[in-house]
């Protein structure tokens, strides 16, 4: 066997998990640490096979805590790194996720969601980790969460996740679900030169001039890797620009506000939405992941029945597209939010609607996707108030 190419340019028939692994490789990921868990295991299996072909490293760790620890370590060795898991493993990663935000460590964490809580429904779909992805680690922080709706997007958004993590120096989460992870569909991998790649901003100045947490104007500090001679000290403690621990409220204020601001200031760069039929819509379906595909069918059915219904798909779930939702709330009758949980993103929609438009949840706790007719019934409800 010869070494394989990192980018498998061509048309493939891949499941979402495999597409995600290929997206990671195309993005330049050369380190994967993980622990087997349904329905994300195929990502690890694909990486175990493919990383040695491209000169990268795969390791199966003893648990998910160790997996994310190793990913953070690899990132500080200067290598793009990823792990993939599902609900229970995602819960185990929460502390180190916070370490990633605090130390500004680029990496990607994939959560192929299944039904919860606890062990829940290992083989069946759920979307119950949307709020955990936003708030799961302790303390204040902003994050970036992308939600793919197809095998193609498992490829595309994994690349986007790496690029955003490298650009803004933070762990970026890909929140998929069991259906999107296992759905097998056409995936088109473009030629390598057509895939935009972002690499972390590196510091190349003299040793003595380097302050590991002195941000540039974009609020992102340039990074170095271990072993490059800069002798950095990196800690999860509140730290000043030198990286030294501090218990000063001023230092805490400066650091934690910057960590949030570097994302908040750039929401226009980070937020991606897909919209259909919004222009004349009286009612807008707001959905993500597999639920967005089901909602699309509901919109088609409603449109066929003469209802002016629009469809807004959250590709970026966090930061939440507040501006767009607030704007729509002034001119639509209602938002309808189908999710495979008992009400998570719908709360954000309701907050943005702020009473100006109705917010109607269509909720299932996971295990199966909606029937488009359930969503259609809510659309009818919205038109009959």
């Amino acid at each position, binding site marked *: *066997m*010869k*070494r394989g190419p990192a980018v498998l340019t061509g048309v493939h028939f891949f499941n979402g998990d495999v597409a995600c692994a290929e997206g990671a490789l195309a993005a330049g990921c*050369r*380190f994967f*640490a993980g622990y087997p868990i349904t329905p994300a295991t195929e990502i690890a299996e694909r990486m175990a096979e493919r990383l*040695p*072909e*491209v*000169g*990268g*490293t795969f*390791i199966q*760790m*003893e*648990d998910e*805590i*160790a*997996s994310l*620890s*190793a*990913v*953070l*370590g*690899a*990132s*500080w*060795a*200067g*290598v793009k*790194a990823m792990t993939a898991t599902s609900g229970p493993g995602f819960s185990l990663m929460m*502390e*180190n996720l916070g*370490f990633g935000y605090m130390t500004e460590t680029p990496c990607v964490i994939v959560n192929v969601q299944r039904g919860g809580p606890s062990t829940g429904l290992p083989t069946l779909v759920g979307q119950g980790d949307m709020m955990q992805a936003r708030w799961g680690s302790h303390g204040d922080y902003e994050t970036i969460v992308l939600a793919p709706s197809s095998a193609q997007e498992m490829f595309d958004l994994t690349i986007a996740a790496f690029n955003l993590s490298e650009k803004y120096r933070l762990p970026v989460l890909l929140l998929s679900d069991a259906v999107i992870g296992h759905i097998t569909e056409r995936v088109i991998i473009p030629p390598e030169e057509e895939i935009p790649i972002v690499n972390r901003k590196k510091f190349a100045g003299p040793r003595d001039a380097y302050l590991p947490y002195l941000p540039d104007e974009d609020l992102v500090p340039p990074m170095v*890797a*271990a*072993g*490059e*001679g*800069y*002798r*950095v*000290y*990196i*800690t*999860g*403690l509140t730290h000043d620009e030198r990286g*030294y*621990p501090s218990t000063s409220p001023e230092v805490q204020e400066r650091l934690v506000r910057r960590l949030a601001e570097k994302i908040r200031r750039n929401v226009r760069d980070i937020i991606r939405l897909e919209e259909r039929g919004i222009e004349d819509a009286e009612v807008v379906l707001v959905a993500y992941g597999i639920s967005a595909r089901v909602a699309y069918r509901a919109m088609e059915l409603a449109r066929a029945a003469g209802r002016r219904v629009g469809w807004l798909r959250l590709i970026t779930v966090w930061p939440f597209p507040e501006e767009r939702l607030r704007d729509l709330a002034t001119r639509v009758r209602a938002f309808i939010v189908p999710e495979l949980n008992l009400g998570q993103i719908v709360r954000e929609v309701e907050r943005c609607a702020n009473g100006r438009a109705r917010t109607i949840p269509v909720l299932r706790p996971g295990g199966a996707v909606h029937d488009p007719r359930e969503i259609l019934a809510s659309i009818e409800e919205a038109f009959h108030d």
Partner: protein
Amino acid sequence: MTEAQHPLDHLLRADRLPHIWCPGCGIGIAMRCLVLALEELGRPLDRVVVVSGIGCSARVAGYVRLDGFHTTHGRAIPFATGLKLANPDLTVIVFSGDGDLAAIGGNHFIHAARRNLDLTVICVNNFIYGMTGGQFGPTTPLSARSTTTPYGNFEPPFNLPALAAASGAVYVARWTVFHVRRLITAFQEAIAKKGFSFVEVLSPCPTGYLRRNKLGEALEMMRYFKAQSEIRHGANPAEAEIEMGGKLLLGKFVDIERPTYHERMRKQLATFFIEPYAEKVSEEIEAKEVES
């Protein structure tokens, strides 16, 4: 007037002094032994990384003038695993305390030893959780008092050298902060050893352990370390159990050869790949060296 330079200033972050450790604490001695060991060892210091978790001993990563990572509680070893795998040319040292390593991080410890990844793990064992104010831990001797064993400890402690050896470590030694010369040598041997090496360093915690157990000042613990130590290289680590006030078995217990994680990985992958397998990172660094 120019400030006098300490001979180890180039290896310590003097701008971070004073350190947080209590008078009589042994962690500073262990840290000094580590930097002296590194200085004499002659490895390129720019490629030496110290990784720690949480606790008093974990603060070492921020006092040495090396790349230092002060990670989450118990997770220094898996973080170090990622560093070492992503850049095998780094010398990676985990500096830990007993609670960090053997309680919350215990699982990572045995798995890293099993893999025989080329890491050096140093554990300052002061028999107590110091940072949080003196709670018992996985190495606290039976009957010892702590804030969470007010009636005396009734959980048997881990014998760390035996745990390391049983899990697959290729180098296992135990010394105390009284035995500084032996300790420096042990650190050098452990760092030079290919594979998973482990050095346990017994150390006084006057504030959290000695005081509560009426064991006197740190100096008395040092006298105890001197008087009750029995040095037996090659001793069966299973005999290295520690009882309060009992004999302390010290020495180099294990120094064996076993293929490392990287050796096994490269050999295994070479049977599948026509081109000799080597991690790309390593190649790039080698290429850079040739250029410069």
